[in-house]
């Protein structure tokens, strides 16, 4: 590089001696910017197109059933009557059960990794939990069907029934499959999400907060429970919502253990159905236009539900991050 050229190309100064070459190269920058912009915008286009396709391809059932679609339990392809209430119920119930199990478990693990474990152990355990998240859904379904379902049928469900004395939630025949089993499998699948976000949020809590609590004489658990967790609360809610988003859309494992019966029963032991499962099971067999579009509308509902949950989750996580940087 000739020495005289160097100062002319310093950033922020006008291009002088190499103006022509510079302009040409600048045009190259503009071109690169344009190309990158096209691909950046393509992410927007794909997301928008996705919503649009779901919308226009579910016009028939929307016109025919309107809002009744969401509240009717009748799913009768032969009679051409479609209502998604049973699937919405199954999806919401399994996700709620999953969170009931996964939230204490996941937050507990996050506390251990962030507050107790030495950094190397924490990193190692964190990696193993990420591998747990990498196990394909269909494999959870396979293991669930062959281990969890018999255990539920032979041990857990009879024991729960005996212990609660015919409480409606824990009644009816013990099939092994059903809402409760699906909820447990889902819990295992979403725990890693709660742990990885939860751990990060807890680690972002300033050290001084813990030190102050300990200096005031609290035990380690008290400093965690009364100081660290409240400080990290929005982020932890974010982690939970993120896990909920995953649970709502999870398909294969649920399809394999939920029992696939479109009914709303009082018992958690009863076979049920979820939105994702009905799409997985019936989509490639739906020959009637109305039938197919009804399934697409189920997909639209699922899409809308997960979108809302994700937006809330990201908002909460971002709120914690902002709070952390402001102090």
């Amino acid at each position: 590089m000739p020495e005289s050229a160097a100062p002319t190309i310093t950033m922020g100064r006008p291009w002088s001696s190499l103006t022509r070459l510079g302009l040409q190269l600048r045009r190259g920058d503009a071109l690169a910017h344009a190309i990158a912009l096209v691909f950046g915008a393509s992410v927007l286009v794909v997301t928008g197109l996705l919503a649009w396709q779901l919308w226009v391809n579910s016009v028939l059932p929307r016109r025919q059933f309107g809002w009744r679609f969401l509240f009717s339990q009748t799913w009768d392809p032969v009679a051409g009557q479609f209502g998604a209430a049973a699937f919405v119920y199954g999806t919401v119930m399994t996700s709620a059960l999953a969170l009931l199990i996964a939230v204490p478990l996941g937050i507990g693990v996050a506390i251990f990794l962030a507050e107790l474990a030495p950094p190397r152990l924490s990193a190692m355990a964190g990696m193993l939990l990420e591998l747990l998240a990498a196990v394909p859904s269909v494999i959870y379904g396979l293991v669930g069907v062959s281990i969890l379902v018999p255990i539920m049928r032979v041990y857990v469900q009879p024991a729960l029934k005996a212990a609660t004395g015919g409480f409606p939630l824990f009644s009816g025949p013990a099939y092994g499959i059903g809402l409760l089993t699906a909820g447990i499998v889902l819990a295992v699948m979403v725990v890693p999400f709660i742990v990885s976000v939860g751990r990060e949020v807890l680690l972002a809590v300033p050290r001084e907060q813990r030190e102050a609590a300990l200096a005031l004489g609290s035990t380690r658990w008290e400093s965690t429970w009364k100081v660290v967790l409240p400080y990290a609360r929005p982020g932890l809610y974010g982690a939970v919502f993120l896990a909920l988003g995953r649970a709502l859309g999870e398909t294969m494992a649920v399809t394999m253990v939920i029992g696939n019966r479109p009914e709303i029963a009082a018992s958690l032991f009863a076979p049920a159905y979820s939105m994702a499962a009905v799409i997985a099971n019936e989509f490639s067999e739906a020959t009637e236009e109305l039938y197919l579009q009804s399934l697409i509308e189920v997909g639209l509902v699922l899409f809308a539900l997960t979108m809302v949950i994700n937006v809330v989750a990201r908002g909460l996580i971002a709120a914690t991050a902002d709070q952390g940087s402001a102090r």
Partner: protein
Amino acid sequence: MSVLTRNRRRKILSDFMLGLSALFTVLCISLLFFVLGYLLIKGGSSVNLAFFTKLPTPPGEDGGGMANALVGSAKLLGIAAVTGLPIGFLAGLYLSEFAGRTMATVVRYAADLLNGVPSIVIGIFVYTLVVLPMQHFSTLAGGLALGIMMIPIMTRSTEEFLRAVPVTLREGSLALGATRTLTIIRVVVPAAARGIVTAAMLGLARVAGETAPLLFTALSNRFWSPGINQPTASLPVMIFNYAVAPYDDWHRQAWAAGLVLLTLVLVANLSARYLLGGRQES
């Protein structure tokens, strides 16, 4: 005295709760080894030469393998890689190098939303976009579904790794007279290359196990599927179909396929992490 016992109680509660959190951690991690070990026991004996070289047998007939599903999965991943990776990479490049504040926020948000879309909904999307107009299921449709799933994963990780490249490197290059484009191509991207390649591997490993979006895009196929214009078998869909079928021999093969799939996914994950770890230490 009463203060002492109260403090003692607080100490015990603290130890108990923290011990519980350690127990939860052990429980969660042992789940991973349990799943892996169980697959090894159930599927290990069925992973043989026939599994890798033979076609599936007709229903109810013993023997056969999943050669077509292995090839099918490879082809699906190939299509996913050539569609999803470049789009995701360039979108990530845009986010880190070119986008203004507003555009960056919007594109980033769209990528995060797309990442949160359930995979079965991606399947519906590709069905309406590709399968309906072409009027048949195909390898291409399945590969595109997986490719779309890769876009947000790739976008966000590319952005992250490019942002991690020190500003001083860019300034050095610009000071030597290189344009921004040249700086990006010759300095920034190579500096982040290892991270980006790793991210691509992780993304591929993740979609390799996806079943739901393939159910009605690639469908499945009991035979070889030449080219990309016909339905194709894939490992995850075979596992699902075989697991819910009423034949013992199919269950045996589902376990074998599960073991092979899980091994591939975990090996890809571990080697990707190993590569990344090496970079961070140096």
